[in-house]
């Protein structure tokens, strides 16, 4: 029997501070026993032996030869992860969760809406969509942060912005010296960009405040709830739907999520 | 007598609800098991007939006072519960103006488990002292120390040494005491019913729940269980009103009262302090005085 609690070993190939405030650290990890198959939107549990495990969305795309995670320093395990240097061994369990329904998205327009450091799995999704560009119609990205230094993967964002097969709209909350993109909160920019909901799916990840104010805009743009997806976060332990804590109604965020469509969430207790 | 008390409690509860002196009254209703009363929360004056009073009203209702920060609360208290209120006031956890206290002198509460064992489901008419909860046997404050309304005749307070059990226990050898503590602690399943039943265990974050620093490991290794009980007791030193709610709440029947009682006795002997009498007096371990005894310094 495969033991789902046992992590796989790997090594940190690269590690750097992602944001200028040094609260976010990105790790590129290579597993000792080859590549991991996964779907964008899935997550892994990273172990620091002696400290514990924490779940992180996979920020790399399946086509990349490393696993990327961007870790926000908030607690005990994440602080320990921030201390890890390149070439350190790490332990990983995954892939866990359901991931974005990329097959359902085929042949459709895709709108990605994100704020702050919630962009991680959306990077994975965006690269996946670009890897299979002919399968999808228009791709629009609206991504904002408090200030430019808090946008994730800034160099890549600039590269993508240059492409003509994807519409990238970057925003910061307030005027910032040298900033060329949009200025304003994500909901406002989304309304301004006003992507068509026709034949389209919308994927949204961001802090609770952004989600709260973006939802009415999404409704205004006529996206039906079943075509809006979001990825949820909850305190997790086992990651395989057994330990009980991350449920929302009868669904476990770790196993049946973290990706949920809005119409499913609307019927469940607001326990997230 | 008891009927008169119930009648008075209901009348007074109705009055203070109707006159909007309070928004809610915390009292007891009939429980669903033999020898059981259960906490009840009355907001509608028409519901006051649910309120009862008998010798099974052992819960310390003061534990609920902090659950209603925006409400004016009426509460029915025994001697020990009233001391909890005073202790919480001394620690600035409650505002006296927001609480209306209905006091009832208490002859001691009867131990459900002892009664079940002795009489099964058929309650006796006459009950002897031996069926009292241990905390009630040693009780020094049967009469509420603070109240707005009192019903029932004051009960004669005990005059003798209040800690005969602790005095006896202190006579045991160190090994005997340690063994006893180990046996009791080993029964613990860490459900924290003792903590949750205690009005004084109000920390926003309990030391067992933090992970940085992590004071003790999870699980039921004996040393971890002992650390839990020792630190819990120490955090109560001189703050514990000796109501016994912790011991009665324990589903595993762990004898934990003697730990806090020993510390209470020490605080009494060292600092001449007793908690829950004067709301202006802060517990000695919660304050600093230049005149603190420092006999441990050489």
């Amino acid at each position: 029997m495969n033991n789902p609690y046992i992590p796989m070993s790997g090594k940190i190939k690269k590690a750097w501070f992602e944001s200028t405030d040094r609260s976010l650290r990105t790790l590129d990890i290579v597993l000792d026993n080859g590549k991991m198959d996964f779907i964008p939107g899935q997550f892994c549990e990273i172990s620091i032996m002696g400290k514990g495990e924490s779940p992180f969305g996979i920020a790399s795309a399946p086509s990349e030869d490393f696993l990327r995670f961007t870790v926000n320093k908030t607690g005990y395990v994440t602080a320990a992860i921030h201390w890890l240097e390149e070439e350190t061994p790490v332990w990983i369990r995954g892939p866990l969760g359901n991931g974005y329904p990329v097959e359902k998205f085929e042949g459709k327009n895709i709108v990605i809406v994100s704020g702050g450091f919630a962009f991680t799995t959306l990077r994975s999704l965006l690269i996946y969509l670009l890897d299979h560009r002919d399968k999808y119609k228009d791709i629009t990205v609206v991504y904002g942060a408090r200030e430019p230094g808090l946008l994730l993967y800034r160099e890549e964002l600039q590269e993508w912005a240059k492409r003509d097969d994807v519409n990238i709209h970057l925003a910061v909350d307030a005027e910032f010296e040298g900033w060329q993109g949009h200025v304003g909160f994500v909901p406002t920019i989304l309304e301004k960009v006003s992507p068509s909901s026709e034949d389209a799916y919308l994927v949204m990840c961001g802090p609770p405040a952004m989600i709260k104010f973006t939802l009415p805009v999404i409704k205004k743009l006529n996206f039906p709830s079943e075509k809006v997806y979001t990825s949820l976060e909850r305190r997790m332990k086992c990651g395989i739907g057994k330990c009980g804590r991350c449920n929302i109604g009868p669904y476990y965020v770790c196993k049946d999520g973290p990706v949920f469509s809005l119409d499913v969430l609307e019927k469940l207790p607001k326990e997230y | 007598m008891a009927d008169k008390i119930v009648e008075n409690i209901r009348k007074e509860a109705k009055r203070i609800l109707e006159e909007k002196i309070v928004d809610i009254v915390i009292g007891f209703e009939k429980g669903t098991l033999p020898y059981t009363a259960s906490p009840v929360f009355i907001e509608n004056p028409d519901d006051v007939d649910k309120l009862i009073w008998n010798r099974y009203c052992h819960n310390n209702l003061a534990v609920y006072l902090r659950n209603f920060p925006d409400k004016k609360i009426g509460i029915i208290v025994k001697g020990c519960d009233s001391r909890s209120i005073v202790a919480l006031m001394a620690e600035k956890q409650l505002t006296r103006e927001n609480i209306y206290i209905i006091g009832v002198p208490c002859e001691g509460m009867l131990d459900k488990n002892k009664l079940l064992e002795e009489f099964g489901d058929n309650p006796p008419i006459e009950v002897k002292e031996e069926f009292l909860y241990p905390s009630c046997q040693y009780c020094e404050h049967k009469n509420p120390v603070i109240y707005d309304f009192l019903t029932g005749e004051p009960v004669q307070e005990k005059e003798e040494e209040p800690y005969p059990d602790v005095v006896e226990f202190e006579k045991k050898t160190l090994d005997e005491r340690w063994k006893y503590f180990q046996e009791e602690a080993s029964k613990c399943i860490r459900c924290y019913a003792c903590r949750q039943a205690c009005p004084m265990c109000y920390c926003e974050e309990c030391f067992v729940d933090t992970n940085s620093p992590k004071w003790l490991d999870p699980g039921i290794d004996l040393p971890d269980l002992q650390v839990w009980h020792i630190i819990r007791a120490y955090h109560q030193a001189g703050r514990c009103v000796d109501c016994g709610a912790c011991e009665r709440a324990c589903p595993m029947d762990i004898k934990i009262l003697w730990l806090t009682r020993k510390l209470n006795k020490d605080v009494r002997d060292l600092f001449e302090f007793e908690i829950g009498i004067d709301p202006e007096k802060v517990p000695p371990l919660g304050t600093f005085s230049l005149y603190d005894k420092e006999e441990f310094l050489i």
Partner: protein
Amino acid sequence: MKKIDKKRLFERLNNLIKDYVVYAPKGKDFGKIEDTSEIKRESINVRLSPKQVFLPQEEALFTFKQGDIKVPENNEKYILFGIRPCDAKAIALLDKNFDTKDFPDPYYIDRRKNSILIAEACIEPESTCFCTAFGSGPFESKDADALIIDRGDYYLIDGNEKALSLFDGLLEDDGGEKILELKKKAEDSIKSPVVEGIDKKLSSMIDDPIWDEVSRKCITCGACTYLCPTCYCFDIQDVGKDDKYMRERVWDSCMFTVYTLEASGHNPRKEKEKRMRQRVMHKFNYYPFLYDEYGCVGCGRCIKYCPVNVDIRKIITKIMEV
């Protein structure tokens, strides 16, 4: 049905202790025995339930030392003697969470597949029993490998080959003894609340004010969940032991505030009414949704041991009245 002499059964059980880890009622609680003389009941059912055999309160998932992960091996065989039918059913319910197709839990399954459950019928159920609410009963045999019925000097016994073969050579003809009346008497003594349709009903009661009402007196300790035979929630933590680390699984409870507390400080179930809702919903709505069975077996432990007399039967009745 067969008949088995009590004395001879216990002799055999004593012999089996060589090959099996035997658990039985030991006074107040259920525990491992070294000799059948330890078997003793202080009440109809034990306080700490048999779930501890398959889901111990604390166990190592693996140890970690110098880059090496070691998983503890377990080849023990278990006999659970004298568990009550409700607790046998509880184990069948635990199976649904741990023995799943997608992520079978090896620790649980290793112990479970090597276990024999011998249930004992409840001739005189307790006042807190309400197993009949969930289609089970004091004489229910289907969730155990065998059911024994106490008849004084002997037991009546029925069960599968696995269980009965333990007592090879000891089983006698039951002489046509009828237990129907005994069974009916036991069943009739149980006063169960009506639960029919509660699962569907709860689906529309997420925001009902009832949760505030039924949770007010709850002091949010974990006594109900730790003593519950079907509650399985656990935590995983790393512990430093001697010269190595251990990743441990330990019981946890949805009644605790920290259970869902996130590192950011956000807590989706901060309010106790939400935690009470979770406990009730999990048993009476989520479990039926996922597994077509209620997650409560009506053992009554949560009622009996609650420090403030929160009575789940009363909560059920209130829900049904809404």
